[in-house]
C-alpha cells in the first residue's frame, strides 16, 4: 500500500491530490520510489499522454524501473538520487515551452524540490499536479542553523548539521521545499521527549 491519508493540519502544510491526465503539448513526470505506481495508474488512464511524456525516475532501491520503461515514454531517465537528477531536470525546464504539464509523485521531499524548480522556471504552483506515494519521511530545515536534514522519520529528531534536537512542525516553506524544525528543548534545555515515529 503506497497511499497515505495525511490528517488535516495547518494551512501551511501542502496538500496532495491524485494525478489526472490534462491536456498539454508535453508532459514531464517526476517520481521517486513508490511514486512509480502513480505513474502506472496515470498511464492506465491515458496511454497517449505517456507517448508524449518525459519520465524522470529515482528508484531509491525499488524495482519499478522495468515497468516504467515498458510504458514506452518519449524519454525515460533514471537517476541515482534527486541531487544527481537535478542537472537534467533544470535542462529540461530551461528548454520547455508553455503547454508543458508537470506531474510530481512520490515523497514530499522530491515533490517539494521539483515543484520549486518548476516554479522558478515559470510554472505557477497551482498548475503543478502532485500525488503523495510511499514514505512519509520529511525534508526538514533547522530554523536555527538553516541546515537541511533529509528523510526525517521521527519527532523530535537531531539536526544533522548543528546537533540540536528539533520538533517536527507542519509549518512548510515552498521556497525551501522543507518543513521547519524548531528546537524542542529551548525553554527547558536538556528536556528532550523520546522520539516517536511520524504518524505512528
Amino acid at each position: 500500500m503506497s497511499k497515505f491519508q495525511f490528517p488535516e493540519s495547518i494551512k501551511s502544510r501542502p496538500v496532495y491530490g491524485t494525478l489526472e491526465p490534462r491536456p498539454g503539448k508535453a508532459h514531464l513526470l517526476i517520481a521517486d520510489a513508490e511514486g512509480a505506481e502513480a505513474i502506472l495508474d496515470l498511464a492506465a488512464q491515458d496511454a497517449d499522454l505517456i507517448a508524449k511524456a518525459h519520465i524522470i525516475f529515482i528508484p531509491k532501491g525499488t524495482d519499478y524501473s522495468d515497468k516504467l520503461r515498458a510504458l514506452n515514454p518519449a524519454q525515460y531517465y533514471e537517476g541515482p538520487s534527486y541531487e544527481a537528477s537535478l542537472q537534467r531536470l533544470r535542462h529540461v525546464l530551461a528548454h520547455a515551452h508553455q503547454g508543458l504539464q508537470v506531474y510530481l509523485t512520490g515523497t514530499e521531499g522530491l515533490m517539494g524540490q521539483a515543484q520549486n524548480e518548476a516554479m522558478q522556471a515559470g510554472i505557477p504552483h497551482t498548475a503543478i499536479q502532485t500525488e503523495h506515494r510511499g514514505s512519509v519521511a520529511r525534508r526538514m530545515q533547522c530554523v536555527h542553523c538553516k541546515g537541511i536534514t533529509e528523510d526525517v522519520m521521527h519527532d523530535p529528531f537531531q539536526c544533522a548539521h548543528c546537533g540540536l534536537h528539533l520538533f517536527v512542525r507542519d509549518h512548510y516553506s515552498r521556497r525551501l521545499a522543507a518543513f521547519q524544525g524548531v528546537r524542542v528543548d529551548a525553554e527547558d534545555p536538556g528536556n528532550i521527549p523520546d522520539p516517536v515515529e511520524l504518524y505512528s
Partner: protein
Amino acid sequence: MSAAPQKAKPGAEQIPVTVSAVVPLNDLVTRFEFKRTDGAPFPTFSGGAHTVVTMQDDGRTRLNPYSLMSDPADTSTYAISVRRDDQGRGGSLFMHTRVKVGDEMTLTYPVNLFSLDLRARKHLFFAGGIGITPFMSMIAQLERMNGHWELHYAVRTEALGTYVDELRYKFPNKVHVYYDDQNDAIPLESLLDGQPLGTNAYVCGPKGMIDWVHATAAASGWPDAQVHSEEFMAPQPGAPFEVRLCKSDKTIKVGENESLLEAMEREGVEAPFLCRGGACGQCETDVVSYDGEFVHRDHWLDDDQHASGQKIMPCVSRFVGKSLELDR
C-alpha cells in the same frame, strides 16, 4: 485572506479634472485627455488600470469605466479612448457629442483589475478592437522596464485600426495586426504553441474573443493563472422591477434602462462599487428574500452562488418576479 474587512464605500476617491484635449482617431473612436483641475500631478497607475468617469447628462448621472491608455508614469495627463456605441446606453454618445475641451468632469482614482503579472517571462497580448486600450498603458509600462512582449491586434478594417499606425511605427517587430475584412485571423493556436515557459497571455476584446483565447489556451495546456482577461459589461436593459432595500428602509423601482446600482444611487442609497461592469466584486449584495428569477450577468459570483439566490451584483444583474429584498 486579509484580516481587516474592506470598507465598503461607493467607488474610489474622486479627482476633479478638466478636459485638455479631444482627439478623434477614426469614425468610431475618440481620445479624451484630462488635466487635474487643481493643477496637481495625477497619481501614477499600473498598466491595465481603469477609471470611472462621471458624466452629468441633463440631470442624469452616468458613471462609465474606461481603461486608462496613457503612459502610467505620466502624471500630467490621463487619457481614455472611447468607442462610440450608437446602440448603447448613451455614455459613449455623451462623451462623443457633448464633451468639449475645457469641460470640468470627475474621474476616480485608478483601479486595476487587469494588471501585468510581472513574474512573467514574456507578455503575449491579444486585443480585439477597442480592447487595445489597456494594452497601450501596459506597453508603455513594459517599455520602460525593458519587458518582453508582443501584441496581436485584430481590427475590423484598416480605417478602424485605432492606434495601429502609432504602434507599428514605434514597435515594428512586436506588433502584429489582423484585419477582419481581409479574412485575416489571429493564428491563435500556433501563437500559443512554443512560447517560452512562464509566458503570460492577456486578452481584451469582445466576449467571443476572450472565451476563444481562454479555451484554446486551456486545451494547449496553459495554466489558467497565466491567461488574463478583462471584459467590462455595460448593464443590459430589462423589464422594470421593484426592490425593497431593508437597511435603507426604502422600496425603489429599477427602470428599464438603468441598472439596479444606478437606481439605488438615484434614490440616494450609498452602495459600494468600483468597476460597474460585473468584474471587481465590490458591489456584491446579500439577498434577504425573493420570489422570482435572478438574471445574473457578472463574472464575479460562481455558478453555485448564482444558483443559491443569496447574492446579487447590482451593477449588471437584474431580477424578474414578484418581490426582491436586499440587505442594503
